[in-house]
């Protein structure tokens, strides 16, 4: 039973009672899983993957303490989900953490609609005014199943005035069955608050992830999303920033390294609605073997949004003839006093540089590795959590070693 049938079947046994959720579900049924005909999914196809047998929100297998320990980053503050259920959360002064069901879910496309209709698991983090958290909060969603499983999360983070927080989020699947996660996180930033949200996506060959992050920013708020897409069968990230007040800043920083048949798609959207704001976006992509990538960065500058600084760069390194990237900047600018720059590059390693290094005695593989690290360094240096930079570098090294040898 393909995914759509599985969802319909799930609907029969889990009927929807309220209007909001059933509207969302109807929207999903009418639109279905997006295909290449949809402009936003032009280079991204789930067609084959969703034809696999799936179950929806299956119960899950028991996860041992050992498996859990191996999966987390061993940080102080952990929110742990096992097979969809929150089993652990930290106690932090000025921060309330609860499990979450969205009572009034909104949606904008098929996946967010499906999520709106049925996601009942997730976390809510609420940071009170003037609370600044030094340690990051790690959120791990761990699951284990004996069948291909489709699972959804819906989360919400609210930062009150002048508060700050750092989050690390990761999804892990322990079994060798397809594990399809459709997740959505709403982030609301009040005046002068600051979030750094790290997506650690070192997914395995069985993980399919569609991840939506929607950030609404009040004046003088500051957001940074670091996306570390270091593996996974299929990943689609949608980041949307809405700048609803003046003097906001939205930052996106991405490192993508994919190997073999992995696929990764980063879609980003910044809506500059008010004046005197900034957005900075830097994505570095490295593609090995037959891996494929998509980057789509849309920047909207509305008529009222004067004195905007919007910077976007997507640089890609194709390390094999069979790898590919589709990169597309999309600028829509309706204000005149605006500084916008964007650039997308696609290239290979520089042969002259490789030869130069080799004449100094550095072997070919090391030279390639050094140049590849140099390529990604600008983005990696922006990571403030040392452990994440280490994981990224290790994962890069592992992938490069595998593919160069």
């Amino acid at each position: 039973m393909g995914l759509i049938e599985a969802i319909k079947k799930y609907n029969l046994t889990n009927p929807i009672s309220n209007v909001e959720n059933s509207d969302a579900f109807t929207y999903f049924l009418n639109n279905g899983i997006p295909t290449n005909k949809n402009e936003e999914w032009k280079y991204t196809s789930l067609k084959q993957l969703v034809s696999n047998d799936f179950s929806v929100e299956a119960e899950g297998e028991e996860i041992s303490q050992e498996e859990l320990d191996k999966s987390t980053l061993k940080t102080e503050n952990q929110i742990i989900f096992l097979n969809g259920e929150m089993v652990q959360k930290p106690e932090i002064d000025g921060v309330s953490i609860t499990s979450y069901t969205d009572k009034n879910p909104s949606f904008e496309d098929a996946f967010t609609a499906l999520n709106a209709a049925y996601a009942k698991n997730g976390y809510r983090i609420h940071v009170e005014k003037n609370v600044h958290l030094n340690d990051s909060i790690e959120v791990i969603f761990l699951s284990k199943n004996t069948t291909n499983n489709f699972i959804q999360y819906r989360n919400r983070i609210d930062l009150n005035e002048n508060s700050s927080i750092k989050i690390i989020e990761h999804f892990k699947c322990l079994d060798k069955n397809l594990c399809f996660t459709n997740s959505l996180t709403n982030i609301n930033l009040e005046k002068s608050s600051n979030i750094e949200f790290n997506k650690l996506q070192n997914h395995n060959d069985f993980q399919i992830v569609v991840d939506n992050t929607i950030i609404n920013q009040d004046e003088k708020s500051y957001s940074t999303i670091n996306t570390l897409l270091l593996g996974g069968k299929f990943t689609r990230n949608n980041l949307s920033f809405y700048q609803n007040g003046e003097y906001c800043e939205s930052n996106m920083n991405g490192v993508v390294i994919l190997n073999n048949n992995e696929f990764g798609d980063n879609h980003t959207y910044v809506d500059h609605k008010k004046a005197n704001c900034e957005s900075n976006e830097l994505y570095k992509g490295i593609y090995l073997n037959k891996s494929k990538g998509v980057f789509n960065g849309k920047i909207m500058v509305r008529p009222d949004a004067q004195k905007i600084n919007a910077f976007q760069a997507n640089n890609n390194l194709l390390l094999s003839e069979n790898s590919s990237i589709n990169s597309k900047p999309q600028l829509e600018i309706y204000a005149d006093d605006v500084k916008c720059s964007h650039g997308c590059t696609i290239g290979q390693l520089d042969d002259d540089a490789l030869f130069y290094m080799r004449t100094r005695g550095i072997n070919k593989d090391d030279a390639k590795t050094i140049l590849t690290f140099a390529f990604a360094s600008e983005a990696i240096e922006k990571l403030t959590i040392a452990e994440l930079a280490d994981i990224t570098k290790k994962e890069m090294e592992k992938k490069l070693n595998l593919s160069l040898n």
Partner: protein
Amino acid sequence: MLKIENLKAGIEEVKILNGIDLSVNAGEVHAIMGPNGSGKSTLSAVIAGNESYEVESGSIIFEGEDLLELDPDQRAHKGVFLSFQYPVEIPGISVSNFLKAAISEKRKQLGLDPISAKDLLGKMREKMELLNMKKGYLSRNMNEGFSGGEKKRNEIFQMAMLEPKLAILDETDSGLDIDALKIVANGVNKLKNKKNATIVITHYQRLLDYIIPDYVHVLHNGRIIKSGGKELALELEEKGYDWITKEADKKWG
């Protein structure tokens, strides 16, 4: 030390080197001169192992070993060094980390113990002093944003660190101001000993006042058309290349 015989090489269909013979012994300095496009850089690139050039025939024997069988990095480990006419910018890696990678790999390949970070830094400092280099330079990215002269000095710095047996200096003098030229030449002379050899490629007699060659060769159309002692360079400075290239063209067509 180095014996090149009947070396023919080119790129795709284009023939660049048309039969080079050259012998270099330990302790010697050879100068190679010749008009633009005569093949000087190609010769040095082929000796260093640039894979974009195809070797059609001939041999390059270095200390009894066929260099053409080796990768560029293996040649470096054996002691071949090329100072590039156009040094390449390597973004994202500092001069010190670059050299650390190069020296560790070389020591590993030669079966030597790794050098300690402290000793390595000490050695870098010493060589920087020799070449009168600015502080802070070690942490800059390799050649990135270096001026023309700084790049050339950086080449000699790497040579000083790697202590090659055979150094090929491809127009290391061009782009250097008079003072820098003296410093670099002095550095090269200090590194010279009975066991190593140097090939200097240059257009200017001036450099040869500082680095005194035992032999001077003239390269033209991918052939060495004349060899002589250091006075040949003076003669070329005075008369240009015409008088020998014409003769050669008659002979080779």
